[in-house]
């Protein structure tokens, strides 16, 4: 009798070990801020877990993604500046090579239908392959990245913890990166707090907000302050780049000079501005919309009439734009370099 109990006990013990040694995921609940629309990203196809998030975070900060192990995603996407590359009009990558566009910010990506200034990328999960394979960014192949990860014991372990398999594939690598970047939600700026009635604008900010709603919000839709649309915002073409934007993707002349309408969140820190980083300050940006619009066939209908802001009004709009800064997001340790 004693022996039976003993064996039974061991059996339970082994069962317990088997049951809990199996990969055990900690799900992350994706929080949709109050007033935000339904996310575009389909979380059913890539359920967020702590383990997947941490793996994605490690990959995001790891130069293993580049050909000579020098460039990580974070080189051009710094958290403290809204995950973009500041101070360079055109972003640069491997061997100091320079690209043709200013890197976009990575913010509220769960609500994005398309990616890149020309919207050429149709899904967050396939976004990362663009910088990985770009000759001027990481100049690597996904096949090679997968090979490097597969021969790295740490990554083998992390993939097993995150996805329950030691076999690292391109699919899992991309999904892990998505699990990290899709959580970049910024919704705690002063602007958000005013909307939630937790804080108040100053008089100047309030005037700026009214002007913003009148002149800017038709493209930079609240509360994301972006849209999934492409517009020609009246920038003169730069003859050193000859970048026609969206037309390169659709080959439709009606899309000539159209670019993504980017989010304005954290705009105080995401300089320089525009697809080619031609404006260094917000003052230049507002001046452009006020009096610098170049007419052309595809110019956005919202910009056909001059805005005619006074000097004071320009200052007011800028003071409003600075309320879009979300320091909780910019300095949130969970998005920083992994411990």
């Amino acid at each position, binding site marked *: 009798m004693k022996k039976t109990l003993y064996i039974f006990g061991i059996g339970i013990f082994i069962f317990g070990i088997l049951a809990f040694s199996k990969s055990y995921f900690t799900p992350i609940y994706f929080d949709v801020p109050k007033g935000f629309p339904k996310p575009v990203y389909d979380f059913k196809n890539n359920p967020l877990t702590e383990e997947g998030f941490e793996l994605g975070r490690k990959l995001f900060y790891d130069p293993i993604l580049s050909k000579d192990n020098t460039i990580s995603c974070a080189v051009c996407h710094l958290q403290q500046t809204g995950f973009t590359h500041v101070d360079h009009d055109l972003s640069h990558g491997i061997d100091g090579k320079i690209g043709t566009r200013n890197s976009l910010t990575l913010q509220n990506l769960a609500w994005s239908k398309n990616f890149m200034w020309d919207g050429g990328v149709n899904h967050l999960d396939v976004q990362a*392959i663009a910088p990985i394979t770009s000759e001027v960014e990481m100049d690597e192949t996904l096949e090679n990245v997968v090979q490097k990860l597969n021969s790295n014991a740490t990554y083998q372990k992390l993939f097993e913890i995150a996805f329950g398999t030691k076999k690292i594939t391109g699919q899992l690598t991309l999904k892990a990166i998505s699990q990290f970047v899709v959580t970049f939600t910024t919704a705690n700026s002063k602007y958000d707090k005013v909307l939630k009635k937790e804080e108040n604008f100053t008089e100047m900010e309030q005037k700026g907000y009214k002007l913003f709603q009148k002149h800017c919000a038709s493209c930079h839709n609240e509360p994301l302050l972006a849209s999934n649309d492409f517009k020609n915002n009246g920038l003169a073409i730069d003859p050193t780049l000859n970048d026609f934007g969206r037309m390169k993707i659709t*080959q439709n002349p009606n899309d000539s000079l159209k670019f993504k309408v980017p989010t304005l969140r954290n705009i105080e820190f995401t300089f320089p501005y525009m697809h080619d980083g031609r404006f260094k300050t917000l003052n230049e940006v507002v001046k452009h919309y006020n009096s610098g619009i170049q007419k052309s066939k595809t110019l956005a209908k919202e910009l056909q009439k001059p805005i005619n802001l006074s000097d004071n009004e320009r200052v007011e709009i800028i003071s409003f734009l600075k309320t879009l800064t979300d320091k909780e997001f910019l300095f949130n340790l969970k998005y920083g370099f992994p411990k």
Partner: protein
Amino acid sequence: MNKKLIYLFLCFLFFISVMAQKEKDSLYFGIKLKWKTENLELNKNYYSKNDTLQFSLLKFYVSGVEINYEDGSIYKEENSYHLIDFEYDNSKLFSISKNENKPISKIVFAIGIDSTASNSGALSGNLDLQKGMYWAWQSGYINMKIEGKSSSCKTRKNAFHFHVGGYLEPFYAMQKVEIKLNDNSNDKNQISLVMDLAKLFEEIKLSELNSIMIPGTEAMKIAILSTKLFSVE
């Protein structure tokens, strides 16, 4: 001890016979790559009416395979995405279904990847982006890659590159192919098709068309021509 060995041996025999059975029961789909009547080889000179050319790379997707039987029934392969790579013989012959032992009237398949899969993010297996059949700066699969060189190409190293793809209208490049089979044209458990590259290169001039890297009218031209290359062996 001996008994144990015999037992093991019997198990082994049984296992082998089951495996053999399984193989016999499958219907295979094979594609032979040719230049006119010869078997295609890489880095060998071929002559079209306009050009002398060599191939260095040939890869394409076959998807949505459908078998139509003479009795009117249709078998559609699920998750049907096959990547044919000239350099890997086992990619040119694959099983598609159980062998029904019924006469087959035609086989239908597509060259390339459908727009749904092209819009679905990171996929696995043959659709994994690490297969290198995917554009980066613009989402979408490359349905077919044909690369090589020809003295007619005034390009670097006389190279030609055809990367054919595109999932958005009006440049949705996936093409359907239908091949009628008659009873004596197919082996009992294998459908063998020939893909004759000469039929494509007789229709184009490499001096004029030698680099396709984006979706568009040129890619559509090659995509449409590629449907004419298949026939029953």
